[in-house]
């Protein structure tokens, strides 16, 4: 078993046994669920909306080169720069060199999963540049030295008391657990950063090909400050973020808000198409877009799983996942957690190290049902399981066990015989007082669950008797 898989199992056991953690998580997700129910009622036909989003993303991803070139051309026409980064190292180097060239000391950053993916902030801080995460949740986890817990709600695992203690220690000028006061303290601290920063870094929810504009969505307005006050704006985006037309946002903006938070639309939906134009009096002098591959073209080359690139990172699949709701975001040990993370990570970081995530699912399909772009997530988990087996990444014993299982299931006589042997063995183990010991094949299950009663006879025999009695 790989280290990542061992860490996952250890953390999952700890987190699922931590009732306080589960209570915080359940409270957060329950609040989200009621908001989403209200949000969905504003759509006349949610299914048609999902279908339309799926169509638009399908069209773009399957003509990705054409739309990226169109986007690039329009950004350049407005005086912006486009850099194509093959991996995290390319992107980090480009941004770090840019910061060096402009003698950047302070950077304000808005929430972006792709910059987490390439560990951008750490690389810049290693060059003595102070990087401020400005989304409140990100600011909180940054102060704690943690990665985000959830794609959309980075500090979902913390109570107001945890945050109050953190702010008292790190910011000093606040001693209360009132959420309003805590937000005000973060605002005061970050205002100073906004007005002194030389560079603003954002992600992009969408890249609009026909206008060469990037679309950024926030509720706090932090990205708007980050693209207004510093003299350089750098946007980092995965190559899959492109959409063809501005009009597509008339659907995507409400969809990402409804699936993400239950709002009809987020407070600030901002489109940036370049540096300050000649007729403008404020805004950055330079605008750079970094287009990141980092394994995405490998996923594109897999026609079966290409639609994973349709993801708009709304986080809806995390909130409905019974596994995520029990073990939480940090247990995954990956940038992208929950069902989308379990599907995506083996592609981005290797099936050897991360194939165990494909098994962190009950295959209930709730993730597929809520996905606003209709990614068939739970079947992709099955595809990843199959790929892991084909690549000989699973233990040899698993293969033998499944061969045996198939052999038994192919004959009703063999199934009946194995049931009889199983019942006999279990009765003997219980009678000899060996339950839960090495000799008990059900010990892994019964460690955490009450042992079922061993029935006197098989289901088929019970059924037969019941039919006879009916007559």
């Amino acid at each position: 078993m790989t280290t990542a898989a061992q860490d996952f199992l250890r953390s999952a056991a700890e987190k699922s046994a931590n009732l306080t953690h589960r209570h915080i998580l359940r409270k957060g997700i329950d609040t989200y669920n009621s908001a989403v129910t209200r949000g969905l009622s504003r759509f006349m036909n949610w299914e048609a909306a999902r279908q339309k989003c799926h169509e638009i993303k399908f069209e773009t991803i399957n003509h990705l080169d054409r739309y990226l070139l169109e986007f690039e051309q329009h950004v350049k026409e407005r005086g912006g720069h486009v850099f194509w980064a093959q991996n995290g190292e390319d992107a980090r180097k480009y941004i770090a060199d840019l910061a060096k060239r402009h003698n950047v000391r302070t950077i304000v950053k808005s929430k972006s999963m792709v910059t987490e993916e390439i560990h951008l902030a750490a690389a810049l801080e290693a060059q003595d540049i102070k990087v401020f995460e400005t989304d409140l949740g990100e600011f909180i986890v940054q102060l704690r030295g943690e990665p985000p817990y959830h794609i959309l709600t980075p500090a979902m695992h913390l109570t107001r008391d945890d945050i109050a203690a953190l702010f008292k220690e790190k910011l000093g000028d606040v001693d209360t657990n009132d959420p309003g006061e805590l937000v005000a303290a973060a605002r005061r601290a970050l205002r100073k950063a906004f007005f002194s920063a030389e560079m603003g870094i954002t992600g992009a929810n969408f890249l609009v090909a026909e206008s060469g504009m990037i679309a950024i969505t926030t509720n706090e307005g932090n990205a708007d400050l980050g693209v207004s006050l510093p003299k350089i704006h750098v946007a980092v985006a995965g190559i899959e973020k492109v959409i063809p037309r501005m009009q597509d946002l008339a659907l995507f903006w409400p969809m990402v808000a409804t699936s993400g938070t239950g709002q009809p639309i987020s407070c600030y939906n901002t489109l940036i198409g370049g540096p300050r134009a000649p007729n403008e009096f404020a805004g950055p002098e330079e605008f750079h877009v970094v287009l990141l591959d980092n394994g995405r073209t490998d996923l594109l080359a897999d026609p079966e799983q290409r639609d994973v690139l349709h993801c708009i990172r709304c986080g809806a699949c995390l909130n409905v996942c019974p596994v995520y709701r029990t073990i939480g975001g940090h247990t995954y040990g990956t940038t992208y957690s929950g069902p989308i993370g379990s599907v995506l990570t083996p592609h981005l970081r290797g099936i050897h190290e991360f194939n165990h995530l494909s098994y962190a699912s009950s295959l209930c399909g709730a993730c597929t049902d809520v996905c606003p772009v209709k990614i068939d997530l739970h079947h992709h988990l099955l595809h990843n399981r199959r790929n892991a087996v084909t690549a000989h990444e699973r233990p040899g014993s698993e293969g033998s066990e499944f061969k045996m299982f198939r052999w038994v299931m192919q004959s009703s006589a063999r199934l009946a015989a194995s049931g009889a042997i199983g019942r006999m063995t279990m009765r003997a183990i219980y009678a000899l007082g060996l339950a839960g010991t090495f000799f008990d094949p059900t010990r892994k299950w019964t460690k955490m669950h009450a042992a079922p009663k061993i029935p006197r006879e098989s289901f088929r025999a019970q059924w037969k008797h019941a039919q006879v009695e009916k007559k």
Partner: protein
Amino acid sequence: MAQSENPGREAILSRIRTALTKPATSHPAKTTGDIFFPIGDALERFQKECGTNNTECLLTDSLSASTAAIAEIISALPSGPIFLQDAPILRRLAPILVSDRKVQWSTEGLPAEESQAAITLAETLVAATGSVFASAACGGRGAAVVAPTHIVLAFTDQLVPDLEAAFARLYQNGAPQKNSMLVLITGSSRTADIEKILVMGAHGPRRFVVALSPRAE
């Protein structure tokens, strides 16, 4: 940038083209049916949505009434400069809007950190979501988010039913070509990052006001 400085460009494009030689295994069905409910009375809907998204919509019967309503809000604010979009109509109304307070015009650059309010115009108003669509021409970058109060002077002829219509009108006006920025503002700045409890005024304005009247006096 010269292409030699960015070898990743050709490498990525080539990988994309190779990947796409294999067609996707499943194709989407065509969408059928309307997605959103039809918008009835745009003005009524806009007001209703503002009520739920924390926008103060002040509907008046004339520009002078809107001007007076804004002036009343400004007079109650703590001392500090007022940031104004440098537009002929706001130049004309400024003496009434802000009285003798210090004014910073958008042509002078970014709003000052100590600004108490920003007064700007809009490109369009979106009824379906109770939103204001603004561009860089509406006061420039930062106009909507630096001051704790943002006031938009708007007119009923700027109302469109939904986002699709708003984008269509922006294209007619050529806005995406003329400006480096567009922003759809729906209510005031907020966060729910602490225990999912809603707090207003996270980084941007705590108060967002739309003073709306017919254009003609």
